[in-house]
């Protein structure tokens, strides 16, 4: 939520505004009504009871009321149910079997009369739901005064809102800023000085469009945009929880997502493959397609998994809950998960609908499925690597075994045991106990090293196995019937209520009828029905939610700033017509994500400068730049910072997927775990883009953590953007920055020769895409006074990597 607000200084002002309403309805309730209710009504109404469904817990509860409607009508005591019940005007008179003193009733009524009457909020909210829950119709493209500014209809929608408020869009960004913006946006890496030079000097009318096309076709585009999707699916390569076991082939899902973006896989197919890839694998499909779709289905398993849970039925229920909630928030932008325990508090989603949606997953079981490597995955290379791992692991295991036999023998001798004594197995305990005199420190170390080597090599083998981390359905004849789904009171397994059939959300379809599930020969067919409904043009949410996400990644803020909650409690769209127009375009362009990128990127709205000459005045009218009278500033994410530094040092290794690489991570983060050990990969392999690094839930790379990396346990619709001192420590002092700065210095010296001024010039051009000013060169020269050129350039590199100009895109 953070980036959209002007940061630190503005915030306290806004909030203080909000604080200065001393006798809000809420505080009247809290001070004058709640004590009476707590004293007299809490026995039955402390929480909602089944008879009345009415709770006095919070002011919201009171306003929502129970079965009979809101308990209080602010400002109108006579119309308030609460008063009617305690007065005995409605039966049963409350409190049940008793009565409040008259004085208490009078003061309750007086307190309600003192409240501010509500202002037709309910009606306004419902109008919003009516819009969002109905399929978008193509809106008319609005007319505008400044027609020449309109490059495509996106601009007409933006400009018409600006003109309504008397605002002018900002001038077009300068070419350097624009090129950096679109490079970081699409491929997550900086343009080279030559690319900038070329763009600045390209006089052709379609110079910019050519760049957009080139970048959309660049394979690094998929590496950049897959990361957004992985944030949403809470991608990780381990289970989380205490054991945090590895998912050796989860990387295939990551590569699937990268390919899907690069190949511009139609979004409706992308959805279907991830929810029901297995049910799309009839005999008519090739083995390649089958592998692809079983890998895509890994989506269902991306959440955390408590492998050692005692209560397996609960574990399964947790899995179903997780999949249901994530599917709804990702694809529909609805917080259906809130209806797990009770009816949704804001949106018209009854608890029943959570379980009706869950019923689509009722037959699903987790499964590691055989799935031959596809050509794009380089099967021969993977086979070769697997063999190499096996060849190396075998002797390592052998020598560990030999070593342990010898050490055991020592133990037997030292303890004077018989060779077959069962306690001989305790020799490992003695090895682990540094104080035990049986073994020397050298022996202990040799054992540890041998053990680690064998473990490291053996662990690597399954990463190259032709297996999909996937799911399957359990259906007849393996089981008598697909498991039934029940509404669970309070979300508790033991509290089974009404039995439900798979069905779509009533608030969208208007019906409670179960979905029709056709016969499928590879599963229950249920998930495919759900996926087809989600990805159908009739669904009002799938396309809106996805184009809104794309908009957010390009512009910094979504048209709705809560991209995974477009319900009542979410943000209101800044430009609903634009959102509808884009959603309809998305369908017309056959769910092509690249087509939508192009619409957004080639708009004038996107190409505006982040600075407006009218900033001061406009900030009073639209402080959060919701109407886009300028481009938003964008701060680079953690991965982009790391990848860019590697690109600048000249060491970034291109890579075509495969198992994740293990970075060097400080011991206090990576060590001390009982069930796994962290073995860094070879240095050369570590130079890959961050998306290819191994994602262990319990070992987060420190730089990712301080720079608001995605939480690997919950779907992350939007990265936080925070600014804290530890970020400075990481970027100034970490081994990573300083190592790459040294390589950067070397690269600069090679390119610029020995002249300090030329070196400084080159360093600025590489890192910032511009030459330094005379003043800047002068300042930078200070570093060369007490150090040799390489050291000075290393320090200069560290400074450049830390500049606001490097981290922020104007």
């Amino acid at each position: 939520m953070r980036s959209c607000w002007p940061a630190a200084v503005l915030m306290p002002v806004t909030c203080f505004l909000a604080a200065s309403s001393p006798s809000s309805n809420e505080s009247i309730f809290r001070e004058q009504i709640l004590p009476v209710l707590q004293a007299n009504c809490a026995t039955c109404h402390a929480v909602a009871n089944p008879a009345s469904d009415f709770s006095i817990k919070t002011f919201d509860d009171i306003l929502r009321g129970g079965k009979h409607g809101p308990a209080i009508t602010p400002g109108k005591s006579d119309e308030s149910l609460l008063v009617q019940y305690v007065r005995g005007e409605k039966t049963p008179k409350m409190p049940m079997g008793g009565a409040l003193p008259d004085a208490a009733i009078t003061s309750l009524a007086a307190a309600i009369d003192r409240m501010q009457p509500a202002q037709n909020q309910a009606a306004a909210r419902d109008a919003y739901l009516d819009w969002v829950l109905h399929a978008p119709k193509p809106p008319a493209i609005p007319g505008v005064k400044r027609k020449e500014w309109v490059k495509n209809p996106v601009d007409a929608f933006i400009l018409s809102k600006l003109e309504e408020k008397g605002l002018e869009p900002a001038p077009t960004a300068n070419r350097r800023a624009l090129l950096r913006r679109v490079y970081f946006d699409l491929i997550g890496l900086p343009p080279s000085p030559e690319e900038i030079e070329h763009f600045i000097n390209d006089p052709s009318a379609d110079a910019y469009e050519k760049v957009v096309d080139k970048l959309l076709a660049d394979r690094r585009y998929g590496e950049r945009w897959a990361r957004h999707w992985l944030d949403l699916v809470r991608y990780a390569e381990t289970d989380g929880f205490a054991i945090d076991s590895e998912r050796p082939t989860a990387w295939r899902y990551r590569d699937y997502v990268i390919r899907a973006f690069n190949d511009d896989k139609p979004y409706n197919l992308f959805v279907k493959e991830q929810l029901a890839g297995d049910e799309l694998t009839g005999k008519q499909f090739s083995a390649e397609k089958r592998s692809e779709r079983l890998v895509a289905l890994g989506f269902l398993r991306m959440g955390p998994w408590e492998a050692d849970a005692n209560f397996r039925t609960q574990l399964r229920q947790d899995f179903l809950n997780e999949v249901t909630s994530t599917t709804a928030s990702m694809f529909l932008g609805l917080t259906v998960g809130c209806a797990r325990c009770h009816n949704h508090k804001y949106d018209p989603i009854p608890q029943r609908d959570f379980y009706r949606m869950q019923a689509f997953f009722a037959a699903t079981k987790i499964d590691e499925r055989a799935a031959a490597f596809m050509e794009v995955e380089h099967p021969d290379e993977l086979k070769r690597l697997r063999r190499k791992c096996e060849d190396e692991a075998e002797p390592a295991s052998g020598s560990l075994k030999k070593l342990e036999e010898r050490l055991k023998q020592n133990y037997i001798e030292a303890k004077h045991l018989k060779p077959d004594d069962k306690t001989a197995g305790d020799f490992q305990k003695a090895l682990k106990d540094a104080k035990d005199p049986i073994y020397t420190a050298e022996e202990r170390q040799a054992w540890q090293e041998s053990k680690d080597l064998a473990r490291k090599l053996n662990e690597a083998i399954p990463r190259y196995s032709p297996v999909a981390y996937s799911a399957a359905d359990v259906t007849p004849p393996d089981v008598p019937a697909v498991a039934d789904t029940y509404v669970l009171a309070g979300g508790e397994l033991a509290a089974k209520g009404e039995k439900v059939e798979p069905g779509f959300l009533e608030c969208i379809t208007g019906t409670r009828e179960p979905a029709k599930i056709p016969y499928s020969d590879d599963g229950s067919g249920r998930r495919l029905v759900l996926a087809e409904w989600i990805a159908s043009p009739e669904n009002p949410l799938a396309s809106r939610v996805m184009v809104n996400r794309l908009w957010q990644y390009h512009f910094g803020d979504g048209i709705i700033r809560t991209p995974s909650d477009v319900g009542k409690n979410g943000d209101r769209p800044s430009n609903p017509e634009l959102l509808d127009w884009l959603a309809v375009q998305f369908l017309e362009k056959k769910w092509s994500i690249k087509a939508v990128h192009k619409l957004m990127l080639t708009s004038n709205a996107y190409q505006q400068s982040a600075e407006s000459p009218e900033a001061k005045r406009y900030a009073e009218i639209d402080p959060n730049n919701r109407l886009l009278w300028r481009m938003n500033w964008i701060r680079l994410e953690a991965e982009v910072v790391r990848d860019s530094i590697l690109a600048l040092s000249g060491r970034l290794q291109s890579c075509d997927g495969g198992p994740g690489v293990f970075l060097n991570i400080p011991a206090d983060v990576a060590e001390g775990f009982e069930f796994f050990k962290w073995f860094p990969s070879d240095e050369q392999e570590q130079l890959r883009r961050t998306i290819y690094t191994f994602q262990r839930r319990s070992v987060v790379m420190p730089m990712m953590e301080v720079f608001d990396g995605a939480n690997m346990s919950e779907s992350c619709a939007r990265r936080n953007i925070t600014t804290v001192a530890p970020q400075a420590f990481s970027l100034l002092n970490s081994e990573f920055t300083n190592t790459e700065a040294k390589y950067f210095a070397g690269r600069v010296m090679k390119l610029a020769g020995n002249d300090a001024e030329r070196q400084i010039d080159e360093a600025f051009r590489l890192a910032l895409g511009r030459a330094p000013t005379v003043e800047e060169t002068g300042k930078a020269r200070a570093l060369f006074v007490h150090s040799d050129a390489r050291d000075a350039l290393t320090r200069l590199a560290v400074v450049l990597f830390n500049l606001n100009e490097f981290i922020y895109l104007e």
Partner: protein
Amino acid sequence: MNFELARRRFLYQSLTGVGGLALGELLNRDLKAASTENPLAPRKPHHTPKAKSCIFLTMLGGVSQVDTFDPKPTLDKFDNTLMDWSKERNTDQPGLFAKPRLVLKSAFKFQKYGQCGMDVSELFPQVATCVDDMAFVRSIQAESGNHPAAVFQLDTGFVMPGHPSMGAWVTYGLGTENQNLPAFVVLPDFRSLPFSGSQQWGSGFLPASYQGTVLRWKGEAIRDLKPPSEVTPQIQNQEMELLRGLNQEYLEKHFTNPELQGRMNAYELAYRMQAEVPGVLDLAKESEATKQMYGMNNSVTESFGKRCLMARRMVEHGVRFVQLYTPSQSWDGHTDVAKNHEKNARETDQPIAALIKDLKQRGLFDSTLLVWMGEFGRTPDCPAENREHAGRDHNTRAMTIWFAGGGIKGGTLVGATDDLGFKAVHDAYRIRDVHATILHQMGLSDLDLTYYNAGRNMRLTDTGGRVIRPVVG
């Protein structure tokens, strides 16, 4: 443009950026805050505070009240008998009572301590010597019986993620006194971090400046605090000078983006922290006697002891809010609760008592609020099927917590549970009431400490809490 001019223009822009609604008193506070250009500058509280700092001792997993501070002789009487839960259908955890359950007496002996005659079990022999300085509340109720949600509620007031932590709210309300140290310090146990890790001390929708900073108690206190060894202080100065200069020029061209200044401030803070943190955390300066007192010489108490000592040094140096955590789910005694609680009590009893005594010796006790609390209490019974490894399950309806120092009335006992210790029956309070009490002692009114987010005034206490009056004297 010179720096001062840029700053003023920037400030002006920020202040007028609210649509001309910046009025009177509203401006005052923020002019003051903005003129120091530091969101963490000390701020005037709502009323005269009793405590300047807070140390929150988080007992993850949930402590059993009937084994620690809420003795129930009735449990001895009915030990091993079948519980009748037929009247408890409408519980928040119906699954819990679906199978037969047996009453489980406490394995620990209770004794009365201090002038006030407070009951403490043998699990906390050293804390027991401090009871005249502590106030116990036996009637706290939680809203969720699930760990992840309950930890969120304990830390942020809400069971769903995304809200600011209490440390973030307090520093947002009050700023901090020592700008060279983080305002809100978190001392987790690195054996096992709380669920959701850093989200527990995050700033939620508040500006990031209020998020907690984790200090490590092994190795370097803050990662990458210092540059590589070949960078001499002289070189580092040059480097910082250049960074400052280039950023300043950039700021003057782009003063409408307040984040640029915010990020420059963060670098200045980092630079000052680098100088100050090592000294503050240098436990070698402490006497042997002090280290002994905190149990740092003993591997059982070392982890919590060292962090308690760090907490004392932090408040001594003006840190506003310090939060300690036991390992994730450490007190979660579903099986062998006696063994579990014995282990956890052994790790924390001596360090906590040492902290109280040390703060008193140094005259810091009155200005430091201590709070000891878990995410919920535990049941007085156990599942019948696992009697040989009897444990207690989660109980949202009763939990004992305690306060000390910071204006708390020592020797106070608030609230009571039923004969079994299952449910609070007198003076029940909720977790938001605990939060309201913390804010109150620190000079903040929970109703007035608001932040506008997504169309609504948000609070730590949501619709408001009740200050637990009897403990605040």
